[in-house]
């Protein structure tokens, strides 16, 4: 079976003034399948966000290949790719205007006119993200952070993408709101046949929703496996140390 997303030997380094280039990511291989949530966990500064940004070409790797359903993403127009591989950034940014106008933005970027299909898309994504239709005409910036993050996800899903990248989606939310959002993401992934890649340092979130986990530390995948196996039978000292950090599991 061809994986929805496949990263092969990805390396990323960045130029540093008057010094050798800094290695951000080294030989990363990662697979994400449809209807599954693949989490990338690890300490801050380990390269998680840099990694996820490569998958929808928000930045470019130094070397390596990335495939979407078997097609090299560098052969796809970057604008088209970003419509197929949606990305939700850490802090939800709401554009001026109503929730509806925010949801319609991806269509306006592709210059397509509003029609019944789009109305259906709005209704579908509102339902998927468990947003009340009563919010549609509300000013998007007046919503709570939790609601804004749901609108953020709904907006990313409106073009019916093949995969979704989530960069620390619950970091700005309180625990009950984060748990509610996590449950919604899990439902969306299963109901929409989406391949979801979740970047987080929140182990509790990864444990609740992820099917498969990659542990990324200092730009290297130190360990990977099924969620249940990895969190309970890890032998990697860095991961054991990471798992033992207080509050990561919300305990």
């Amino acid at each position, binding site marked *: 079976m061809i994986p929805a997303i496949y990263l092969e030997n990805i390396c990323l380094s*960045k130029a540093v003034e008057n010094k050798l280039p800094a290695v*951000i990511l080294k030989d990363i291989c990662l697979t994400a399948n449809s209807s599954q949530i693949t989490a990338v966990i690890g300490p*801050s*500064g*380990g*390269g*998680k*966000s*840099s990694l996820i*940004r490569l998958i*929808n*070409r*928000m*930045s*470019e790797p130094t070397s390596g290949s990335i495939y979407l359903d078997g097609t090299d993403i560098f052969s796809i127009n*970057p*604008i*088209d790719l*970003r*419509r197929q591989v*949606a*990305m*939700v*950034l850490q*802090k939800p*940014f709401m*554009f001026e205007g109503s929730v509806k106008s925010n949801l319609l*933005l*991806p269509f306006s*970027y*592709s210059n397509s006119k509003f029609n019944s299909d789009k109305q259906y898309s709005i209704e579908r994504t509102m339902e998927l993200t468990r947003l009340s239709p009563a919010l549609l005409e509300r000013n998007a910036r007046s919503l709570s952070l939790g609601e804004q993050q749901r609108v953020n996800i709904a*907006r*990313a899903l409106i*073009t019916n993408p093949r995969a979704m990248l989530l960069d620390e989606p619950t970091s700005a939310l309180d625990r009950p709101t984060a748990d509610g959002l996590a449950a919604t993401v899990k439902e969306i992934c299963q109901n929409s046949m989406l391949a979801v890649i979740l970047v987080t340092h929140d182990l509790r979130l990864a444990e609740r929703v992820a099917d498969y986990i990659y542990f990324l530390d200092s730009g290297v995948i130190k360990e990977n496996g099924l969620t249940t196996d990895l969190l309970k039978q890890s032998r990697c000292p860095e991961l054991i140390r990471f798992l033992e950090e207080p509050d990561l599991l919300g305990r």
Partner: protein
Amino acid sequence: MEVQKIINLEVIDLVISYGLVLFSIGLTSLSRIGQERHLFWSSLRMVFQLLAVGYLLQMVFSIRSPWPVIAILLIMSAFSLQVLGARIKNKMPNFYRIVGLSIFIGCGGVTVYFCSLVVGFSPWYNPHYLIPLAGMIIGNSMNGASLAAERLTSEITERREEIETAICLGATARQASQTAVRNAYKAALIPTINTMAAMGIVSLPGMMTGQILSGTEPIIAVRYQIAIMCAITGAVAITAYLIVLLGYKQYFTDAHQLKDQPTS
């Protein structure tokens, strides 16, 4: 109406007028704001620079050749670019290339249009007309150019989150930076709009005042002022438009990626 002959200012008149600068220096010294030296040196610079320009222009006027005129215009443009560069701290990538090209096309194009179609002097390089008119067009466009370049940089820096969100949603670099570009362009045009609105009521413009002092009939001076204001507006609008249009692209790659992304 009888046209008055211009009153020539002798050296003694300049000395008397410089007394006002000396009075100002005394006043700042009393106020203890520590600006006496700046005031003194600036006033000396002003005197020597203007005298040098005066003698240079007199020399250029006497040579019947387009080359000295072109050289003066190029030097003026280069200085305006250098002043702009010194004024702006956070410069956009390729600042000098973009602003230089924009000033060249915006101010150069408007100067050619204005001098050939509106004033219509002969020969085309007549320094009596070309140098002051082009000087006013370039000088007044500098403010708009500076505002456009400076504001575009700050808008794109401050709106990074908004721009990246739009790109993630499938926007092109142009669509994602639309608000930043519009705000920068608007900021560049506002001073020109305000100057036009206030002209004649709040202030009497320098060119018109100068012409009236030199004996030109007020209505002719007013016609010149109206025409030059139209030219300045056109030059500011074109120069600033080119700066924001070429400028925003410097922040993006060909794959519509915002450059200099922070790492996690």
